[in-house]
């Protein structure tokens, strides 16, 4: 098995499962934190990831989970042969207007299903065969609260601003057009105005 990605939370390996290409995502213990916290977080995140991947699949594209191992905190899922939206934006392979709208629609679908992803970044979106797949549900939550949905949008907005600063406005404006839920957008405005960082 070869490491394809060493992320913040997890290490990802490429493997074969019943002959098909898969990704094994393993949450290794972190040396910097005490055992008690490390255990709670790794357990909670993997359970959440499996549960929310499944729930989200009813409204957005997500990879199928093939195996879950709570002992080594790993899940095996189908490999998406494509590239992250982050990479595609950096390589000018995305049309910001179309992309914004597409992402907006996708997030709206999640939110209507009462799911807040809580780590909406372009690294967690993979384009494969013309469609965007959403991954990395370890911090997602089941929620109907509008505040949580607005916060979900805020994470994405801030990420765009820091990382895709050449096209962030274009993507964001179009994201709102695709999202089309004025109430949550209004809530987001309120949160931003209250926050220190405006």
């Amino acid at each position: 098995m070869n490491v394809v990605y060493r992320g913040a939370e997890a290490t990802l390996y490429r493997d074969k499962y019943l002959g098909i290409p898969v990704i094994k995502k393993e949450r290794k213990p972190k040396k910097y934190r005490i055992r008690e916290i490390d255990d709670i977080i790794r357990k909670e995140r993997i359970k959440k990831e499996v549960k929310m991947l499944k729930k989200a699949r009813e409204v957005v594209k997500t990879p199928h989970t093939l195996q879950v191992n709570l002992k080594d905190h790993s899940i095996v899922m189908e490999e998406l042969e494509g590239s992250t939206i982050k990479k595609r934006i950096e390589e000018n392979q995305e049309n910001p207007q179309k992309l914004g709208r597409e992402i907006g629609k996708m997030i709206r679908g999640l939110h209507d299903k009462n799911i807040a992803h809580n780590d909406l970044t372009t690294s967690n979106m993979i384009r494969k065969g013309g469609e965007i797949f959403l991954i990395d549900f370890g911090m997602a939550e089941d929620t109907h609260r509008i505040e949580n949905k607005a916060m979900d949008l805020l994470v994405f907005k801030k990420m765009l601003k820091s990382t895709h600063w050449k096209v962030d406005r274009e993507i964001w404006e179009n994201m709102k057009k695709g999202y089309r839920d004025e109430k949550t957008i209004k809530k987001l405005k309120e949160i931003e105005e209250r926050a220190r960082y405006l």
Partner: protein
Amino acid sequence: MNCLGIESTAHTLGIGITKKEEVVANERSIYKPSPGKGIVPSEAAKHHSKTKKKVLEDALKKANIEKEDLDIVAVASGPGLPPCLLEGVKLAKKLSNQLKIPLVPVNHCIAHIEIGKKDCKSKDPLVQYVSGGNTQIISQSGNLYRIYGETLDIGIGNAFDKFARNLGLQMPGGPKIMQLAKKGENYIPLPYTVKGMDLAFSGLVTEATRKSENAEKEDIAYSFQETALSMLIEVTERALAHTKKEELLLTGGVAANTRLQEMNQLMAKEHQADFYVPKREYCGDNGAMIAYTGYIYREKNQDPKEVDINPTWRPNTYKIPLPK
């Protein structure tokens, strides 16, 4: 070229002097709130107003120059507490007018980063900037510092201080919690709040305070510190993986926390990143960082009449000058 820098964004009234890029003076006086209380901005401002003459004299003496030898005056005009900022800006304008030298408004957060980079010889770090009021994960991309993650409510330093006060500990609370935590053994689960690369501390303070009633002080301090710092390292690690930077720089007053240093060191190592902490005197608020940043950003000088305080000034709006 001599540059004088004035820092007065919060507790510290600091005045530093640089000769070109070299720091030749870094003097300060720190306001101490009355026991059991947090900072009262108007009281802090009074302290700054009362001590500025002495600190200025000390700095000039230390640098072994006269006022008239100054070429630039720089001031931290934000972000910070308005009454405190006003004191610094007033003094800066006075000197600028009196000596007919340019005035450079400096962003306080960026000054922390610039002096840290200089002191550690770090080129392009991911910065974990942690102080009383600020908690941000920042790095340069293009000609701006970008904020990748930050606190959504209070700064981590204030979270430590607030929790310490709730435990009835004397100020400054942060170091007291750290000392107590060293003797803690039992972990008491506490809320852990991270959203993407952002984080929040209020819920943690409230719950830790509530649980402190039925726990040993050492244990609750230990649990509080481990939780708060784990959250901070997690978002920093996410930003490090995200930006692929090869250096990590810890700065701000909370950088004095040795457990935080240790955790950063361990995390950075796993990503093959170099880890840096500037000298203590450059981590806390200080005038030298303002002087140094004022000097390297000197083409940003302004007409003193136009310089005003900017209490909510975000570091991601301040263009970094291109190297000459």
